[in-house]
């Protein structure tokens, strides 16, 4: 299926929850959905017999200062051989959106990583802890307004 057909299918099922189809001149087209509907959309994408996105290739966080954080889902169907990029914007102050770790198991660690480095909270995640940084780390390093620490547990961070 082409991206336009995928977009139509999602639009037909979810209506207003599917916000827009962005087709940039360079790079791949993406579909923006509202953050609250991410889990339903993901489940639909996996289960629908014409979509069958059975693989989540990547889940990334993006920082769009000053207002938004985004979560990007790269999905691939190994039976239909098509792919789709979903995007969900969340406000910076309260970055919360439902988890997709129950739809694709592989999203579990990806979401922990996004939580670790961007501070995006995935509600309903079974074990949302930091995965790379130490548990007592302060701040979310990949946010663009991140301030480097001066000291970590007694170790000076700079000369």
């Amino acid at each position, binding site marked *: 299926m082409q991206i336009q057909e995928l977009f139509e299918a999602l639009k037909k099922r979810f209506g207003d929850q599917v916000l827009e189809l962005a087709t940039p001149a360079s790079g791949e087209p993406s579909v923006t959905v509202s953050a609250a509907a991410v889990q339903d959309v993901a489940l639909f994408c996996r289960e629908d017999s014409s979509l069958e996105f059975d693989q989540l290739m990547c889940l990334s966080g993006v920082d769009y200062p000053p207002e938004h954080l985004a979560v990007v889902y790269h999905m691939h169907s190994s039976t239909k051989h098509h792919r789709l990029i979903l995007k969900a914007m969340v406000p910076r102050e309260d970055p919360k959106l439902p988890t997709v770790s129950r739809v694709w198991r592989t999203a579990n660690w990806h979401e922990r990583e996004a939580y670790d480095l961007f501070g995006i909270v995935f509600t309903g995640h079974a074990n949302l802890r930091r995965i790379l940084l130490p*548990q007592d780390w302060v701040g979310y390093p990949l946010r663009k307004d991140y301030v*480097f620490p001066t000291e970590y*547990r*007694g*170790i*000076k*961070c*700079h000369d």
Partner: protein
Amino acid sequence: MPILENRFEENVVFSTVDEMINWCRLSSIWPMTFGLACCAIEMMAVGAGQYDLDRFGAGAFRATPRQSDLMIVAGTVTYKMAIRIKRLYEQMPEPKFVMALGVCASAGGPYYEHGYHVLKGVDKIIPVDIYVPGCPPRPEALFDGLLKLQEKIRHQKVLRRLTPQEKSVIDETTRKYELETQKLAPLPKEYQA
């Protein structure tokens, strides 16, 4: 040898004994199996046939800090790992030596400017005896570092008394690492597994 250490005058007997002890130490530096990043690949190459670390008596890689003399910190040290490195270093028996292999372990390397998570040199937490720059260093560079470390051990004073100057250097190092790192703040309770 805490009782006998640095207790005797400089004379021909104790010079010879020190020489003997130092020769024993430098001829059997057992390193710890301790690779953190890509420099560990070069460390493995050093242990393998073409370079053969065993020619210097340093080929017995031990899997525990309690049996090893030399810690080759091979690779990028993150803050998360730094706490563990400190603990491993404290578990090593005296005499113990540290080699910082590669620029990451020496001073932060490419992460020096923009790495939020990388320790800017392992000498911030443990005293380092020899720095081997390179990204990663050649196996020969590691040999060069090892030979220089052996040269350093050869001139150590074990039984002989230290001069005030040497003593002050050692005291200062000890004090520095006590101040900077002995009191690593413990992990907060809610995070302890």
